[in-house]
């Protein structure tokens, strides 16, 4: 474990740590373009030059491994001068069009030259090598003129997706970034290209010209798109989610996320959201308040007793699941969650990057809480046999299964918690408006059994309510209050009863999640961990 000093601060780091990483740990940001924590080091931009005592030449921080006793100056006169001149070199062929560039605010180049007061550096703008204008690559727009040839996009496509769509053509200062024949990007990780590009050369088509990034507020969260559970930021402005972007977690998604996951923000604010409760009347639906709906549901559950059944949803947070299970227990009804067998797919990859076949974020949480109890088939059979009086669905999954329509028709009272409108809801008798993932605090447990937090980023529309709160409302009415008024408190209760979760709470889970002992391999069908 070598110790070194960077800008007067001491730090001890693991063997093999580079100077740029050590500085990062100290909160010192060494300027860089080509280095990216999750891509192989290429050392091409020469921006990260630092002065190291006893070394005659400046060294690049990104490829210099910390040795014991090293004394590093990241901003000495020599180092600062090198940063300035390197920047000048990069600006020779770069248009300074920040006022119209979408990267503005997230651009390393802009940060750097502003920092160096180089607005009108003596770069020879008139001689700039002419390059083409913006090219549409499908999900990505390419503006080669802004490219600083850092090769991050090429390395990303080589190391992460293996797709190799980008090429540098020609050499020297004629080098240009392009795809073969300007063909569009077709893989499902294109959004990351815009993220890795340190300047405005690769921009997301989706976000282009939408708004200046400094208007956005970011919230730490977890993608609900599949059992991988990529860590993300939810970027929102005035209560409206504008984009999702990856949040680095080396144990889960590194710095990446998939495009389908990235697109999920679009569903949050859709007009088809359910914003209030409703009850089926003789002829049509009647709107009621959530309170009234919960009164009705509680009454029916009480009346039905063990003739009630409960189906949880792996879309729910652990807190949702815990409250729902408590409700099933209180009613002594049947319980399960495995509509569509998500538990068989939870660890199954569908590509070599991130995505998994189980498109639910919390199947593992369901399993951990023992929600795989009575069997979906048994519950459906009981319905079909007329033995179920009240069926409570935490999500609409079962309503969408064509084979069970006849069985559902035998149940006199079907309650469903739902976020979005859909024809299947007509098979229920009561619809309760549920908040979506981005509107509530909570936790998911991903395929690795890593418990991760998501935070409410925006307010739920209308009377839409977190699912755990809906369940807690019913429990309250049944006289068995859950004894918690926030997701955090629900989790604390959960932690006392679910094996392996003991001692955990929201704070302990933190921003990077907490790994539990890995699950038995029984359900795993594919190999894990690609470096």
């Amino acid at each position, binding site marked *: 474990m070598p110790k070194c000093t960077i800008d007067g601060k001491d730090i001890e780091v693991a063997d093999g740590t580079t100077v740029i990483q050590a500085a990062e740990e100290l909160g010192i940001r060494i300027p860089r373009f080509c280095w990216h924590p999750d891509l192989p080091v290429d050392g091409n931009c020469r921006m990260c030059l630092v002065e190291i005592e006893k070394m005659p030449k400046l060294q690049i921080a990104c*490829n210099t491994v910390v040795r014991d006793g090293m004394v590093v100056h990241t901003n000495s006169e020599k180092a600062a001068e090198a940063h300035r001149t390197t920047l000048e070199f990069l600006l020779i062929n770069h248009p300074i069009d920040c006022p119209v560039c979408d990267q503005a605010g997230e651009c390393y180049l802009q940060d750097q030259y502003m920092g160096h007061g180089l607005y009108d550096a003596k770069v020879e703008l008139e001689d700039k090598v002419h390059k083409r204008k913006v090219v549409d690559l499908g999900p990505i727009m390419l503006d080669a003129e802004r490219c600083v040839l850092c090769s991050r996009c090429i390395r990303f496509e080589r190391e992460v997706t293996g797709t190799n769509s980008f090429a540098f053509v*020609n050499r020297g200062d004629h080098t240009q970034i*392009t795809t*073969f024949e300007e063909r569009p990007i077709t893989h499902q990780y294109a959004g990351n290209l815009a993220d890795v590009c340190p300047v405005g050369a690769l921009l997301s088509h989706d976000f282009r010209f939408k708004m200046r990034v400094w208007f956005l507020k970011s919230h730490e969260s977890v993608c609900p798109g599949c059992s991988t559970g990529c860590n993300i930021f939810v970027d929102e402005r005035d209560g409206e989610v504008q984009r999702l972007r990856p949040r680095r977690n080396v144990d889960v998604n590194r710095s990446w996320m998939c495009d389908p996951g990235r697109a999920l923000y679009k569903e949050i604010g859709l007009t088809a959201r359910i914003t209030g409760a409703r009850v089926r009347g003789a002829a049509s639906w009647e709107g009621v308040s959530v309170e009234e709906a919960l009164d009705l549901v509680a009454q029916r559950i009480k009346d039905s007793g063990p003739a009630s059944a409960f189906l949880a949803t792996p879309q729910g947070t652990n807190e949702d699941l815990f409250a729902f299970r408590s409700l099933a227990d209180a009613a002594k009804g049947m319980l399960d969650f495995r509509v569509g067998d998500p538990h068989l797919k939870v660890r199954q990859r569908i590509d070599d990057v991130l995505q998994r076949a189980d498109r639910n974020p919390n199947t593992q949480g369901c399993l951990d809480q023992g929600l795989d109890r009575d069997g979906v088939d048994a519950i459906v059979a009981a319905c079909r046999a007329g033995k179920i009086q009240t069926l409570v669905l935490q999500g609409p999954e079962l309503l969408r299964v064509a084979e069970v329509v006849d069985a559902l028709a035998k149940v006199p009272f079907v309650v469903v918690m739902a976020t979005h409108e859909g024809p299947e809801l007509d098979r229920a008798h009561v619809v309760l408006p549920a908040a979506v993932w981005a509107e509530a605090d909570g936790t998911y447990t991903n395929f690795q059994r890593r418990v991760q937090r998501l935070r409410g980023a925006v307010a739920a529309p209308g009377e839409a309510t977190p699912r755990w709160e809906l369940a807690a409302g019913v429990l309250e009415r049944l006289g068995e209050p859950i004894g918690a008024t926030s997701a955090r408190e629900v989790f604390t209760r959960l932690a006392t009863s679910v094996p392996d979760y003991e001692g955990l709470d929201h704070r302990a889970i933190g921003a990077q999640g907490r790994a539990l002992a890995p699950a038995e391999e029984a359900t795993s069908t594919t190999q894990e961990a690609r470096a």
Partner: protein
Amino acid sequence: MELTPDNLKAFEEIVARYPVKRSALLPTLRLVQEQEGWISREAMEYIAKLLDLSPAQVKDTASFYTMFHLEPKGKTVIEVCTTLSCALGGAEKLLGHTCRKLGIEPGGTTADGRFTVKEVECLAACGGAPAVQVNGEWLEHATEADLDRVLAGETVRRTFEWPKSPGEHLLFQNVWKENSTSIDVYKASGGYAKLGEWLRFEPEILIEEVKKSNLRGRGGAGFPTGMKWGFLPKESPRPRYMCVNADESEPGTYKDRVIIERDPHRLIESIVVSCHAIRSKTAYIYIRGEFHEGARTLEKALAEARAAGYVGKDILGTGIDVDIWVHRGAGSYECGEETALIESLEGRRGQPRIKPPFPAVVGVYGCPTIVNNVETLVNVPLILERGAEWFASYGTEKNGGPKLYSISGHVVRPGSYEAPMGRITLRDLIYGEGYAQGIKDGRKLKAVVPGGSSTPVLTADEIDIAMDFDGVAKAGSMLGSAGTVVMDDSTCMVWMAKNLIYFYKHESCGKCSPCREGTGWMLRLLERIEAGEAQEKDLDLLWKVTDSISGKTVCPFGDAAIAPPQSTLQKFREEFEYHVREGRCWKSVAPTFEEAKAKSGRAVSA
């Protein structure tokens, strides 16, 4: 498009030479170009399929190298070298003449598709200036009359006649013999006689001998060869590779070419024994693409050597296997840098890798690799034959053995000469009767680039130095690859710096920003200065740009590129100032700077 059945067979054979398929990319591009005349978009997609690459990867590589034509080209391709030595020999005029006659610009193709004329960088034919290649065949000492005949459809070839060096010929002992490339001539001179004996030595003993001999690398850096071999990790299960650096592209240098074209078996035997010393079973000779004749000669010699059992499996019954493959480059100076060479050998753009790790630990295919220059290796049999002590004492202290010196430019008798390392001075080389015999046309010596374009220029007063690594270093320059370029007093030093910066800008691989952008910046400044359009502060700016590149690049190319402008600015600043002050080059005023200065009638700062 598809490869013909014969070419497809050739392709299969090529792929089998490499442990990694992508390595076959450069040879495959060449095969396709030979078949189709150029490399089309369809061809790139076809090659991508053949080699399991994406079309973008193929284009990424293909577009890096100047010898791959991604546009249709003429039936006859005329390539005129315009780098320093050839430019001193009148290349620019020759190029202008040819282009004018065809009515095209350099780089262009005639409308009837018969001719393409290209301006190319140093062809390692500096003695044969101005050097031209016509469809890859040498036409050295080319004249306008030669080119007229080529344009008339004739085949004109001419190869430089290397003059004999005085004294003992060790490395060059065969090159003037009749049929010198044949295995019989090589064997008659004692070649391959002791190979079996050497292969029975323990490798460590051979390395020890090479260490004791004080052999230093002849590729440019002068790194002790035995020490480099000693860096190979002792306990690595991975195979080891030898890469023979036959990329000879440093302007002014044309000495490896002599061995390759005239005495290939000497190189082959040297590779076999060196591979044994480093326990490598495979060597790739990375030969620059422009050495068409050299590649043919090596292939033929290798076939002979294989047939005779000197190369291949179980050589001479020793149980030692060494395979040697010729891998041709495709037009890129930077591919002479050892890690760029490795990248190129792996089928990628010729861009260097960052170090560490060093090739001896992680080289080609991620395996321990030794990269050595051709001339370095041909010294190894000499060491084994005559002993390390003899070798060490043959040159000067810490500079063992014989050395090959190339000299070109304004001299009477350009050539590549052999002499004991450091036992001759730069003055001997330039003026010696047995060497270059002085300055042409009775003119005065003005400046010398002692060791290839990357070494700082010396003035006429700085030539009394021993031509070994330490001697030239003492004078503030470098022995480099010992490619000496001599300039007489008719040479404008601003023009000279511009000529070489043009070379460096053209050859910069573009990987790192200071060199990629800085070479172009320096060129623009020098063009402006030469044209008399610059101001005094541009001279300081030029110096600042060199300073901003110095020591900050991925590979030593950056430091190489600033040697010409820095050293000329330091030693010939007067000439730069003249251009600024007078608004023109002194050559438009008088044949020498001294005369021009006198004419301007004003005092000139020192």
